[in-house]
């Protein structure tokens, strides 16, 4: 019963916490929540930690690896996306406006 209570409360926390998000942040936020459901790796750890037959070893190890990809990849990718936004300290917009500056790697084919 307590678990059901926790579940229902968590549903409402999830609804409340998310409600107003600027479109800009939808992808990063989706990616972050995606990383958080990597929590299933804990299930993999538990299953593997108490496994005692060959197939369970295999299943458990794959589950842990999958979960770890989900967690590590998810958080890192989110960090990269958000890093794009934070490197915005651009004191003088016009001073950086000669074309080579921003397009140094991409602009070579003009």
């Amino acid at each position: 019963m307590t678990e059901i209570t926790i579940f229902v409360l968590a549903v409402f926390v999830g609804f409340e916490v998310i409600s107003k998000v600027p479109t800009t942040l939808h992808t990063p936020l989706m990616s972050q929540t995606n990383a958080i459901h990597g929590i299933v790796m804990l299930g993999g750890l538990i299953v593997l930690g108490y496994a005692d037959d060959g197939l369970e070893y295999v299943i458990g190890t794959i589950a842990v690896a999958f979960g770890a990809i989900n967690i590590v990849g998810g958080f890192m990718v989110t960090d990269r996306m958000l890093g794009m936004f934070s490197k915005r300290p651009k004191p003088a917009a016009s001073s950086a406006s000669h074309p080579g500056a921003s397009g140094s790697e991409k602009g070579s084919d003009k």
Partner: protein
Amino acid sequence: MIQAVLQPGGSAATALYIVAFSLFIVGIKQGTHPTTAKRGNLVAAGGMAVAVVATLLLDGMGNWGLIFLGLGIGTAVGVIASIRVQMTEMPQMVALYNGVGGGAVALIAWSEIRHGISLGEDFPLDELIPVIFAGVVGSVSFWGSNIAFAKLQDLIPTRPLAAPGQQVINAVLLLAIVTICVILAVDHESPSQGLFILLLVLAAILGNLVVLPIGGADMPVVISLLNAFTGLSAAAAGFALDNVALIVAGTLVGSSGTILTMEMATAMNRSVANVLFAGFGGAPSGGGGGSGEEKPHVSIGAQDAAIKLAYADTVVIVPGYGLAVAQAQHAIKEVADELEARGVTVNYAIHPVAGRMPGHMNVLLAEADVAYENLKEMEEINPEMSRTDVAVVVGANDVTNPAAKNDPDSPIAGMPIIEVSEAQEVIVIKRSLSPGFAGIDNDLFYEPNTSMLFADAKAAASEIAAEIGNL
């Protein structure tokens, strides 16, 4: 069974779990504001680290070699993939990460069933039902996400693929899945592992069949929905394992993911059900160009475009996925810089679903150092359109199609669009007249104030920037 072992030594773990999901909640909350989003992500990652450590400290854990093998492989793959992925490929990366999460859930559920059966005891229903749910949803999510990944990566065609009678097949599959669930639950004293595996396989087929008919344009909604599903299945696994952290974190993702999904669907003026069951856009698929009669359009070169832009007062750039594919964000920024140096006001109009995910275009433009203030959302820019001299559409298509407003019979009727045709002049940079993801012709291309610049977005933008510089 397992959880009986866990409960006694669980109090320290429970305390750490409470810390962990507090951090998750704070992390998600901060993720909704631009200034705190980056910190929020780190906070949530910290919460995850705490939760992992807490789990490793549980009494009676063993098989450390395999645990660290799994952790090592997963971490290495995650790190390498995240470093190497291009910003344009983010949506499919998220789909892939979501898929492996779902796969982990399905595997855990299978393992739980095996474990329960091997103990030869009565399988309590309050564990069996979550296990079954986790298995089915995890499997659907795994395969659905993989198909979404394959579509976005162009490994399989993005256009809707549907067999005749698809809905009937899906319904039969669903019925079979429900039936097996019921049989397993009724027989909870000794559930059959074979039936459970069959269940996983049927769910896998269903995951494939549900996502295959959905067109590329709807993929963001699908990924977001699958993300929410994976969260819910993780919560179900938490019920089965009596693990509070899984329940809370999984549920948080399930509910927040549902909200995100609905917001995205709303932005496209479609219901989630419509996205899932109506795969639109099969209609005029005459590849390459005109499916009907060749309609008249105006074609210009980079120099003409440069002149139109250089002598404008206000320019609005409307980027779309074509810009992302061509990696043209830096080149476009050069054009904007040249124009701003000449005193032209340049803004960017971001449709809620520009690119392949909401916010995707913002990420790409931020990568090219476009100032945040210049990125205007659709509602903000549309009233400005009639006062705009030149609107430049770069690799965007369906989100500018006036048919959404004017033609009630259009498949995209009612979808909010960037009203570029209100501008004095429109320049569309595009490789051909071919239709976009929705698979329908864009009336914008044939309007009298529209000029088409047929070129790769990046090459064209670089050329225009150079031409403006020469003026």
